[in-house]
């Protein structure tokens, strides 16, 4: 798996309430959920995002509630990988278990800007900004997590085993 796409960039401490606001928690269909993704922080996100695009953020992305809809809506919106300076624990787990690739990459916010094209290789952690030529190194995911991601999430992973 290798990801390449256009960057959507946000700051530090982006919480699950703005990624997927509580008022929509009764919505269950991922494609409908995607329409509300990031609504409280970026009204344009859901309209502009295309399949394969990459979300870049600062530290502690996904803090707040345990709602996995925050990961589901991003995946359904087309995001291929979330790369941030760091993540909140439950969001990190949810993303992996739902098959949304997620990588911690110290220094990512310094080398990527909104609209840049980014290429990411999860097995080596190599991140390349195709627009500026700058590079960064993300933390490599442990093999058993890569397995879950490769299978498309925890449910397909369990079905397989």
């Amino acid at each position: 798996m290798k990801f390449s796409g256009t960057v959507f960039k946000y700051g530090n401490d982006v919480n699950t309430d703005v990624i997927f606001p509580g008022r929509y928690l009764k919505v269950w269909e991922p494609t409908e959920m995607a329409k509300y993704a990031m609504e409280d922080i970026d009204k344009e996100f859901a309209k502009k995002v295309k399949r394969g695009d990459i979300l870049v953020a600062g530290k502690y992305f996904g803090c707040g509630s345990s709602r996995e809809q925050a990961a589901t809506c991003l995946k359904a919106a087309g995001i291929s990988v979330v790369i941030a300076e760091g993540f909140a624990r439950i969001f990190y787990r949810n993303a992996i278990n739902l098959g949304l690739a997620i990588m911690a990459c110290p220094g990512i916010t310094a080398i990527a800007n909104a609209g840049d094209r980014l290429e990411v290789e999860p097995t080596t952690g190599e991140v390349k900004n195709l627009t500026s030529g700058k590079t960064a190194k993300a933390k490599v995911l442990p093999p058993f997590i890569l397995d879950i991601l490769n299978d498309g999430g925890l449910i397909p992973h369990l079905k397989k085993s």
Partner: protein
Amino acid sequence: MGKTMAEKILARAAGVRSVSPGDLLDVIPDVAMSHENAGLVSKSFKEIGVSKLFDPDRIVIIFDHRVPAESEKTAEGHKTVREFVKKYKIKNFFDINTGICHQVLPEQGFCRPGEVIVGTDSHTTTHGAFGVFSTGIGATEMAAVWATGKLWMMVPETIKVVTEGKFSPGVFSKDLILHLIGLLRADGADYKAIEFFGDAIDEMSIASRMVVTNLSMEMGAKAAMIPPDQKTFDFVKTVSGKPFQAVLPDSDAKYCRTVDLDLNLLAPQIACPHAVDNVKTVKELAGTPIQQALLGSCTNGRVEDLEEGVKQLAGRKVHPEVRMLVIPASWKVYRQALDKGLIAAFIDAGAVVLNPGCGPCLGAHQGLLAPGERCISSTNRNFQGRMGSTQAEIYLASPATVAASAVAGKIALPEVRS
């Protein structure tokens, strides 16, 4: 080498002799709790394709987030879960007439020292008040727990918090934990466990301890624990007939950080918009006009919280330009509050008493905010848009500060009243 509570409890739950931070374990939780999101869990569970639950008796489902159903969609969700519960014979199901999951779980005897609880709610850390390793997980991984009985977990490092001194009048466990969040910041305990020590913790009621462990989530904590003592055992024995094996930390346990808090100097605290770690003293904010005051939630909706609220209101009225909402954390709490005359006192003072549940805490229904409005709340999150409009502001404080502010019509220090 000595071990922390997290290390000892997780080792037992994984069936291994000894673990260290960073170890990956397959943990077998004793209790697996969900609320309305059990609907989502059951959907994923069906996708896994196994025919039965690993152990229906470990599963607890409590409706609290939108009770009674505020929309047709929620009603459908509730219905799906009720049907699932029947089909799979889940006996620990609590419908809309019980209360908030984090209050109902201990009330019904599911919090036993030394055990592991996982819950599809981030504030599942609350149950660490009973010496439980209790942590929040997502709905999909809960489906895996329902199907397989286990879950992968990393052993966390532990932060030791030691309190010294005593609370001044008007200062409560809510002020202690808000102050700590301000110090450690929102990600100060991310991926970590916390253990709390000190005379003030020992002297605290069970309800006050739950405030501390509940809000520890707002520093990112994976689990927050208070070593169990006689008070814990007495409580647990009154609600649970099951035997348990309490776990205490070793005296030479290794902590990644120790934080000392001097309570003698602590003044009432308030978390300002739009982050829980944006903590100031109430004094600094005093005079800021408010339109709503909310007393309730899994953080501060217990009898002692309602009592503090009534103390502030006694002989006075809620300010005419303020809507005060009171939500007991459970129907048991509601019943006790009725017997103690607290509900009558709230009504007489002009407050609106709602049915137990999460209410507006997560912005689903029952008292949302309009653009430009300010609410002071005894809940645990003040994120932008959490309680209605993204243009509204939420301030978090103790029940006493909330009630004092409701009377004043503006943020105000609690009065010392007996």
